[in-house]
């Protein structure tokens, strides 16, 4: 009988030890899930978009006054709204990064590094377009790991900037040959996106962390979408296979790319490949911008679905990020098209909905 009592007491002690261990394991991700779900409840719905798309630019600040954007959107101009959205996005990225359990911070570090890429893109695009140094600097967002060194690039030429980036995670020398030959900034733009993305993929795909399963699935969708858009642009611009390969994460439809007569033919052939899910709603004769929008809608749809597949965990966080990114894109677009005088109907057609 004494042995029985001893076993019972041991079981109780084990149960008591289990409590803190269990809580330590689940606490960070449950908290993150709760926070992003409340944030998700504040996302704009169709009705709100309808109302927003029919406003004049003058009414935008008051429309956003009581929302999370209110702090940054303060003046009725497209420039102020665009800048406000960037600052809001930066704050949100930092907030989400802080919410992510520390054991995954290396993977989600892209939320911070993303700002290096955006700043770098702005600087290089500014140099390419001949925008004055001060103006370029004013457009930068104080974020990321290389803010100061990127800022210094603003006054240099593009060749000098490419040399300065040598040895950093954003080495663009690989794309300079095409850029010099065509003077097309898209090559540098594509390479920067690839540079940021390949690091995330490297960190996440090779991680044995089970918690990253849903994130990896979404990452794959994003990689497919980026590659497909680059391939379509490449086909439309007559870029050869070898040149294009440098700008893609994975080039596994080389035969379709090479054998297709034009971009429409290539699009049809893509329907028979792993990219088919990205273009399932695409009708015939659509322009590339529309095809890209449709594929972004598919990305958003997949992002939303992830939350259903994984109620607690990274699923809701990834899903929220996908939806928030789409919302920010939509707000920016509404502001731009409103400023340019487009009708509410036309504006609505351009928005992303999953």
């Amino acid at each position, binding site marked *: 009988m004494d042995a029985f009592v001893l076993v019972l007491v041991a079981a109780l002690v084990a149960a008591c030890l289990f*409590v803190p261990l269990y809580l330590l394991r689940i606490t960070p991700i449950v908290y993150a899930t*709760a926070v992003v779900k*409340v944030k998700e409840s504040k996302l704009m719905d169709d009705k709100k978009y309808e109302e927003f798309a029919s406003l004049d630019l003058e009414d935008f600040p008051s429309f956003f006054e009581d929302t999370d954007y209110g702090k940054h959107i303060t003046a009725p101009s497209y420039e102020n709204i665009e800048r406000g959205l960037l600052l809001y996005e930066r704050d949100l990225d930092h907030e989400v990064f802080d919410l992510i359990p520390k054991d995954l911070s290396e993977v989600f570090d892209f939320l911070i590094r993303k700002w290096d890429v955006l700043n770098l893109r702005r600087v290089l695009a500014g140099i390419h377009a001949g925008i004055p140094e001060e103006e370029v600097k004013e457009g930068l967002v104080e974020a990321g790991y290389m803010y100061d060194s990127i800022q210094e690039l603003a006054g240099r030429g593009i060749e000098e900037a490419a040399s300065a980036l040598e040895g950093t995670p954003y080495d663009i020398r690989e794309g300079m040959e095409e850029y010099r030959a065509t003077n097309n900034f898209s090559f540098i733009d594509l390479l920067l996106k690839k540079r940021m993305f390949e690091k995330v993929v490297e960190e996440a795909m090779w991680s044995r962390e089970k918690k990253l399963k849903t994130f990896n699935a979404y990452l794959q969708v994003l990689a497919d979408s980026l590659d497909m858009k680059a391939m379509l642009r490449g086909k439309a611009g007559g870029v050869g296979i070898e040149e294009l390969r440098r700008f893609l994460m994975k080039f596994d439809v080389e035969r379709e790319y090479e054998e297709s007569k034009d971009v429409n033919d290539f699009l049809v052939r893509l329907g028979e490949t792993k990219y088919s899910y990205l273009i399932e709603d695409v009708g015939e004769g659509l322009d590339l911008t529309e095809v890209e929008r449709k594929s972004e809608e598919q990305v958003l749809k997949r992002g939303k679905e992830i939350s259903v597949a994984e109620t607690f965990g990274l699923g809701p966080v990834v899903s929220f990020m996908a939806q928030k990114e789409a919302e920010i894109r939509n707000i920016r677009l509404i502001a731009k098209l409103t400023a340019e005088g487009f009708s509410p109907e036309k504006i609505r057609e351009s928005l992303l909905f999953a």
Partner: protein
Amino acid sequence: MEPTLGLGYAALGAGISLGLAGAGTAIGLGFSGVAGTGIISEDPRKFGNVLVWNALPQTQMIYGFLMAILIMLGAGLLGGTVEPISEGAGLVALGAGIVVGVSGLSAIGQGSICGGGAIASAKRPDVFGQSLVLGVLAETPAIFGVVIAVLMLLAIGFL
């Protein structure tokens, strides 16, 4: 009076009843509580709803506490004269404590449901009622446990 082995079993039963049920509640609350803090960090107006979700996993600990009191009263460990009780009666009381303690671990599952319910209703307030029903359903094992434990105590004349 020197405590007998029977009395020791009964006391152990009281301890297990509250101890295990309390552990269940602690884990369950850990889940719903963390979800709740996440929600009110974003929207403090949702404190009322969060409180409801955090109250549900507490009931198992209350059952464990009540059962512990009943066992201690029956064994004369509370306020009365300590009477020698048989080893058999002590084991039955221990069994009653175990059944309430173990069934009280249902608070873990309930806490998970409540955490999920709190999050779901924070996003969509219209699903508060349905989610609450699911949370309350997880109470069933604990209620059955208390019923059986009370019947056991009645059988040995503790009540």
